[in-house]
C-alpha cells in the first residue's frame, strides 16, 4: 500500500519545504521560554514514543508527511527549513490549527508530553551546527586548507575552488553523520525511498565528473550540475559554466569520482576529528524565533 497518498518518508539531500496549512502559517508568532527538554536525549526518546502513538497516522513516521497531514519536518536543507519555529510548533500542537483537521492536544496530552514531542521534532529538524562535534577547530581549518586539500575542489567563505559544493553553510544544511559519511563512505549516495514526495525540482547533488564530446568534436570536462531530457549544465574544469543542448552532445563519459572517501584513513584520528569539528561549525544557525518582518516590504 506504499504510495504518496498514504505514506511519505524522508530521504534525499534536497528536502522539501514543510508546508502547514495556510491558517497555521498565518497564526500569531508566540514567543515563549526555551523548551526545557530541548537537547535532552532521554526526553527526545520519550517524545518520539509519544509522537509515534499520536501523530504518525496523520503526519507519517519521522514527520515526513502522512495520509492526512503535511510533512512537518525536514532535517537537512536549511533554506527550506520548516516555516514555523519551535514555539509556533508547540502552539499548533497545544491549540490545533483552525480550519484544518489538526486538533488541539492540550488536555489530551500533558504539557510535558507536548514539550517532549517538541524536543523530538526539534531534534529531527536540527543539523550539525545545532550540536557541533568536539575537536580543535583552528587545527581543523588548517587541515581543510592544507593536508586535506578540501579547498582544491570546494569553496568556503569565498576561498577555494568551484568543482565541489560550497561548504560555507554545510553545518547548517546537513547533520553531522551525513558530513562524516560524505568523507568516509564510498558510493555516498542517498537512495530513493518508496513513499517520498519531493516538493521541488532539485539540482543533481552527485557532482559526477564527466567528459562530454560534442558533435562538433569539441570536448568539455567538468562536473555535471544538472541535466534533463533536453539539456546539460556542466561546471567545467576551466571554471566556466557550460550550458549544453543535448542535441549537440555526441557522448557523455563518466570519469572517476572526484571526492575522496577515505579521509578517516588519509588523516590521523585527531586530524579527522579536528576537521569535523571545523566543518560542523560552518554556517548560520537558524533563528529561534522568526525574523521580524520588514515594514517597508508591505
Amino acid at each position, binding site marked *: *500500500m*506504499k*504510495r*504518496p*497518498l*498514504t*505514506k511519505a*518518508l524522508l530521504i534525499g539531500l534536497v528536502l522539501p519545504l514543510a*508546508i502547514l*496549512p*495556510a*491558517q497555521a502559517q498565518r497564526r500569531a508568532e508566540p514567543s515563549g521560554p526555551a523548551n526545557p527538554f530541548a537537547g535532552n536525549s532521554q526526553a527526545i526518546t520519550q517524545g518520539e514514543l509519544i509522537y509515534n502513538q499520536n501523530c504518525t497516522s496523520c503526519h507519517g513516521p519521522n514527520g515526513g*508527511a502522512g*495520509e*492526512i*497531514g*503535511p510533512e512537518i519536518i525536514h532535517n537537512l536543507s536549511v533554506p527550506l527549513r520548516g516555516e514555523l519555529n519551535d514555539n509556533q510548533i508547540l502552539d499548533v500542537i497545544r491549540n490545533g490549527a483552525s*480550519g*484544518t*483537521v489538526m486538533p488541539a492536544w492540550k488536555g489530551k496530552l500533558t504539557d510535558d508530553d507536548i514539550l517532549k514531542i517538541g524536543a523530538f521534532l526539534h531534534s529531527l529538524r536540527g543539523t550539525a551546527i545545532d550540536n557541533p562535534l568536539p575537536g580543535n577547530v583552528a587545527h581543523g581549518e588548517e587541515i581543510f586548507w592544507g593536508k586535506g586539500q578540501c579547498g582544491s575542489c570546494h569553496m568556503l567563505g569565498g576561498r577555494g575552488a568551484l568543482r565541489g559544493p560550497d561548504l560555507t553553510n554545510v553545518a547548517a544544511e546537513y547533520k553531522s553523520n551525513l558530513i562524516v559519511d560524505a568523507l568516509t563512505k564510498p*558510493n555516498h*549516495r542517498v*537512495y*530513493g*525511498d*518508496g*513513499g*517520498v*514526495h*519531493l*516538493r*521541488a*525540482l532539485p539540482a*543533481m547533488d552527485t557532482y559526477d565528473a564527466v567528459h562530454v564530446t560534442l558533435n562538433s568534436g569539441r570536448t568539455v570536462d567538468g562536473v555535471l550540475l*544538472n*541535466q*534533463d*531530457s*533536453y539539456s546539460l549544465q556542466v561546471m567545467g574544469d576551466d571554471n566556466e559554466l557550460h550550458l549544453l543542448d543535448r542535441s549537440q552532445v555526441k557522448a557523455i563519459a563518466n570519469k572517476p569520482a572526484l571526492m575522496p572517501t577515505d579521509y578517516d584513513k588519509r588523516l590521523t584520528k585527531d586530524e579527522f576529528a579536528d576537521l569535523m569539528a571545523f566543518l560542523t561549525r560552518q554556517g548560520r544557525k537558524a533563528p529561534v524565533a522568526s525574523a521580524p518582518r520588514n515594514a517597508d516590504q508591505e
Partner: protein
Amino acid sequence: MRRFSSGEGAAVLRAFLLATTVTLCGSAASAQDSYPAQPGKDWPIYGGSYNNQRYSSLKEITPANARQLQGKWMYHVEGLQGLESVPVVVNGVMYVSGYNRIDALDARTGNVIWRFRRQPATAAYQRGAAVAHNRVYVTTNDGHVLALDARTGAQIWESKGGPKVSFSGTPPMVANGKILVSGNRFGTAGDGGGFIQAYDEQTGDYRWTWRALPENGDPALESWGGHTPGGGPIWIGGAYDPELKLVYYGTGQPNPQWSGKGRPGDNLYSDCIVALDIDTGKLKWYFQNTPHDTHDYDSTEIIVLADMTFKGKPRKVALQANRNGYYYILDRTNGEFLQATPFVSRVDWGTVDPKTGKGLADPAHEPTVKGTITCPSTAGATNWPSPAYNPATGLFYVTATEGCGVNTLASSAPDSETSYLESPRDKESWQLYTRAIDAKTGAIKWDYKQVRSNHYGPGLLTTEGGIVFSPEQFGQVSVLDAKTGRSLWHYNTGDLITASPLTYSEDGHQYLAIASGTNILTFGLPERVTAAEKKP
C-alpha cells in the same frame, strides 16, 4: 477582515438566488451513460472515457505541427501540497479538485468561474472529480460524496447512509445512475480493508458496498490460512463496460505488507483485478496477479478496456501493466487469462504460469531482516500514472520504471513491517521511461528516457492526431510521435509532475493540459496569422 459593502451583499444574494433557481430548473441527473466511448471536445472523467484508453479523437495537434506548440494559460491552485488530480473539462469549463473543494475555470482562458470549499480544509493529495448531467461529483476526506451544480458550484446533495468509511481520494465513477467511490479502510476502526461503495446519482442515497476482504461464508476466506484478512486497499479509479454492465477495479496488497508468515495462502481478494455488477456490487469474476504478495505489488494500476482480435479471435479485453512487472491481457467478459509478458528488463520476484496466469513467487526474494533485493522494487514497474492505448498504432503506452529495490523487515515477527528503498547497486537504480508496448504481443516497440525522473511519474495520453503527450516527473512535458517515440516538442513546467494529462478543445482549438506542482498548465497551437496581419 474584509466585509462586503451593501452592494456586494446584494450581489451575493442575487447570485445565491440565481444559483438556486438554475439548479431547480436545470436538467436533473439521469441514469443514462452519457460519456462518449472516446474523449474528444470534452474530457469528462479521470481516464477521459469509461475504457481508460486516454485516446482522444482530437487531431489538430499532429507530429507535423507539434513543434509550434506554446503555452496558453496557467492557473495556481492555492492551499494544496501538490496535484495528483486530473482536471475534467465539460462544456467549456475545467474542474480542478482536491478533497472537499473544486475550482471551476474557463477552459479557454483559465479564468475562475467559481470556487467551492467545504470544511475540514486539507492540503492532502487527491486524484480528481467527475462531471455528468450538469453536476460535479467530488469526495470529501470525511467519507462523503458531494454533488455540486456544474454551473455555479451550488451543493445539491451530500451522500447519506451506508457504513462509515474513509475514501482514498480517487475520482468518483459515474455509471448507470450510480456514483462509485473506493477506499482503503472500511469502517471506523482497524484494518477493515479495501472497498467499493455505490450511491444513487439522483439523491446521494447509499446503494451497495463490495469489500476486498472475504467475509464469513465466502470460500475465499480459506485463502488466509485461518487468519484474519487485512489489506486489499482500493485507491485508484475503475473502468466500466456499459454493455456488460460491469465495473473493473484493481485491489491492493494484503496486510502485513512485507511479511507473509502470518497469512499463509493466496490472500484473496488482494492484488486482484475484479469485475463487479454495477447494479448489485456482486463479484462477477476476479483474477489475482500476485498471490500471497510480500512486495506490495498492488494491482491498482489503471485497467484499460479494448476490443481487439487476439490470436485470431475477436475479444473484449482488459489490459493492465501491473506493478509486478508483467503486462496482462484478460478477457473482460469472464476474467479468462490470455497472456502476460514482462514489460521491464528485470523481473525476479517470481514467474507467471503462461497457461493459467498464476503468479509463482520465488522464496529467495522474500523480504528479510537483513534485506532482500528484488526487481521490480515495491514502487513497482509502474504505479498509478495512467497508461494510454492507441488502436491506430496498436501500441499501449506506459510510464515504466526500470530498477530494483530492497525490502527489509524490522524483525522476524509475523506482523513485522518496514519500508523499502532503491537498490544500492548502480545498475539497478530507478529510471523512468515512456514505453510503447505492442498491445497484443507485449513486445517493447520504443522507449523515451525521462532523464532524471526516477519515481512514479505522470501518466500519458494519445490522440488520433498521432501524438503521445508525455509529461515527466522532473517537470518536462513532451509531445512524442505515437509511432516512433521521437520527441517533437518540449516545455519545462518548473515543478514536479505526478498527475496524468488531458486534452480537450474549445472554439475549435485543441488544448493539452497537465497539473504540475500546484499549477495547471495548458498548451496549444498559435493562432493562425491572417493575410492582413502579414502585410507590413
